Each structure stands twice: as C-alpha cells, then as structure tokens.
C-alpha cells in the first residue's frame, strides 16, 4: 500500500461491505481491459474509508500516495455510502475527492440525493466493463476531461431510468457544473489574496523609496 504508483494510474478507494462485490470490482478494474490504469485499495466499511482518508490527509507530507477517486456502495451497515459521500466532501472542500456511488437499487430519489450531495456519478450494480469509462471520466487524474465533458457525462447512463430521472437530474447536473467551477475558483482565493497583498506592499515600498529619495534631494539642495 505504501508503494509508488505510476503517473496516469487512477488510485481508487473501493468501499463495499460485500466481499463478492469487492472482488468483482477489484478484478474488473485490474483486468487487461483496463490496461493497468487503476490501482484499487478496498475496504469493507465507510468507517474504515474515513480512517484511511483521514490518515492520508494528516500524513500527506510523508505519504506520496493519495486517492484519486472513491467508489462506494450505497447500502452499508452503520454508515451508508451517502453519509460517506457527505463526509468526504466535507473533509476537503477546496480539493474534493471525486466520489462515485454504486447501488443495486435503481431508485430515482436515491440517485438525485447522491448527485445533489456532490457525487460525480451513480452506477447501478453490478458494475460492468462498460462502466469503467465512467470511472475514468470522474477521477481527479482526468479532471480536465471530466469538466469539459460534464454537460454530457452527467446525464444518466442506460443503467438508470432515463425517462423518470432525466428531468430531475438535469438541474442538479448543471448545479454540479457550477459547483465544480466555483470550487476551482475558491481553490485559488488564498493565492489571489496573497498576490494582491504582495503587489500592495511593493507599491507602498516604492512610494516610500520615492519619498525618501525626494527627501534626500531636498536635503542635498538645502545643504
């Protein structure tokens, strides 16, 4: 787990209490079809996922390996995937980790709830090869692609009941595009603020030097 991961490889934290589902997803993402583009770390509960991500946050200076994406089951005992989603978005609001929720239930309300809470996508189980591209689209490794294609990507796939949920999802998908843009902007606010302060300090210094040099000239004139 502490080993170096190649660039361009999406590091996925997989959260699912079912050992069968965990194994299927692990094998799917490490198959030849995925050409080594995923590195999967699997945990069996949302609590362990939080602990893992919390450790990574604190130990980030020492640990080079971070997580590019969380893929979580919705229905889990003690802490659900929805609660995990909200906790992850709250953990790092400036640089949120993409979260994709999976569920065996194709419930429009559940899907809307997750997307409104910031989930990048919602996939109805069982995960299949055709869902892998959706995972690639949503990882932070491919953020540019994700934002560029977001208007199209955010519409539900053939797993989801399109007629019932397309209208419901579209407004939230637009909100998600806006939200992701505003998150990116807010990420730069501290730097922008520091830059403005620096410019102001330079201007003040310049003014002080100018006045000092004028004062010296006056003194010279007077002498």
């Amino acid at each position, binding site marked *: 787990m502490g080993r170096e991961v190649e660039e361009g490889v999406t590091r996925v934290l997989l959260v699912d*209490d*079912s*050992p*069968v*589902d965990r*194994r*299927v997803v692990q*094998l*799917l993402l*490490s*198959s*030849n*079809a995925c050409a080594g583009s995923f590195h999967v770390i699997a945990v069996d509960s949302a609590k362990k996922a939080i602990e893992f991500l919390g450790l990574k946050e604190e130990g980030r200076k020492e640990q080079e390996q971070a997580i590019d994406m969380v893929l979580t089951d919705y*229905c889990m*005992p003690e802490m659900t995937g929805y609660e995990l989603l909200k906790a992850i978005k709250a953990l790092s609001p400036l640089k949120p980790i993409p979260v994709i929720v999976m569920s*065996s239930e194709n419930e429009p309300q559940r899907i809307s709830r997750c997307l409104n809470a910031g989930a990048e996508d919602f996939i109805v*189980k*069982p995960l*299949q*090869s055709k869902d892998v591209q959706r995972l690639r689209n949503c990882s932070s490794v491919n953020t540019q692609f994700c934002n560029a294609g977001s208007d199209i990507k955010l519409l539900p796939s053939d797993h989801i009941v399109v007629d019932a949920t397309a209208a419901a999802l579209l407004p939230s998908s637009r909100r998600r595009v806006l939200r992701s843009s505003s998150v990116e902007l807010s990420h730069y606010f501290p730097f922008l603020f520091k830059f403005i302060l620096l410019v102001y300090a330079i201007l003040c210094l310049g003014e002080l030097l100018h006045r000092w040099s004028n004062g010296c000239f006056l003194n010279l004139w007077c002498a």
Partner: protein
Amino acid sequence: MAAAALTNQLNALVNNMFAMGLLDDQFQQLQMLQDSTAPDFVSEVVTLFCDDGERIICELARQLEKPNVDFDRVDSYVHQLKGSSASVGAQKVKNTCIQFREFCQQRSRDGCLKTLDLVRTEFYDLRSKFQAMLQIMNRKAESTEKKKNCDAEAEGAS
C-alpha cells in the same frame, strides 16, 4: 481427460445453467473478463459467492427462528444476498431474494420462512453446479499444465 473434452463438458454445463435460468448475462461478463492477468477470475468470484451465500442463509435461518423477528435485519441480509447474486449472475437466487424482500416489508414471518426454504434450495442447487464447474476447470488447468510439461520434456529430449 483431454483439455478439449473438458472444455466441451464445461461449456455444456454452463449452457445448461443458462438454459435453466440459473445464470444471466452478468456471468458471461465475468467469463469475458477472465484472461491472462486474472486466470482464476471466475473461480475466485464463484467460490466467494458460495461461501458468502452459505453464511447469509445460516444467518437468515437464525434470525427467523427468533420469537420476535427483526424484519429490518432480515431484509438487510437478503439485500446482501441479492447483491452478491446479481454480481455473480445468479439470476434465480437474485429473483427469489426480490420476493423475499417483499415479505420482509410486509412483516410476514410465514412468507419469509417459505421464501427462505426456496432460496436455500435454489442456492444449494446452484452451488452444486458451481462446484462441478470448478472441478472441471481445475482438471482442465491440470491437464493444460501436464501437456505443457510433456511438450517441454519432448523439446528437451529432441
């Protein structure tokens, strides 16, 4: 038995399972993912399913024996079994789990007990076929290995 004969036997067994509605296209998806990077993909997942399914069914029986049945808990276990069945392509077990959940929601103990019997029968039937399948796959792998060794020896001798 030659690898070709074992392959035919395996295909016949799997096709029969599809024809009887025991498996759906999710199982085909798993078969397609089996390759050189994951040569034991199917056997791993099937073995996990058999072990996990056994555990869940025992737990369901235990829960339904209680004088005051916690139907939410029962529903949670059935949901797990339904999920893993869907992931493996165990269509018949999955569909019975859907019925089971309806009885859980109706808080019907009799309904749950009857459906538990049904899901148990179907699960054990599927499991025995999966075990036969795994045996054939193991024999096929051994046969392939043996042939490779024979070919290597023959090359060495020549």
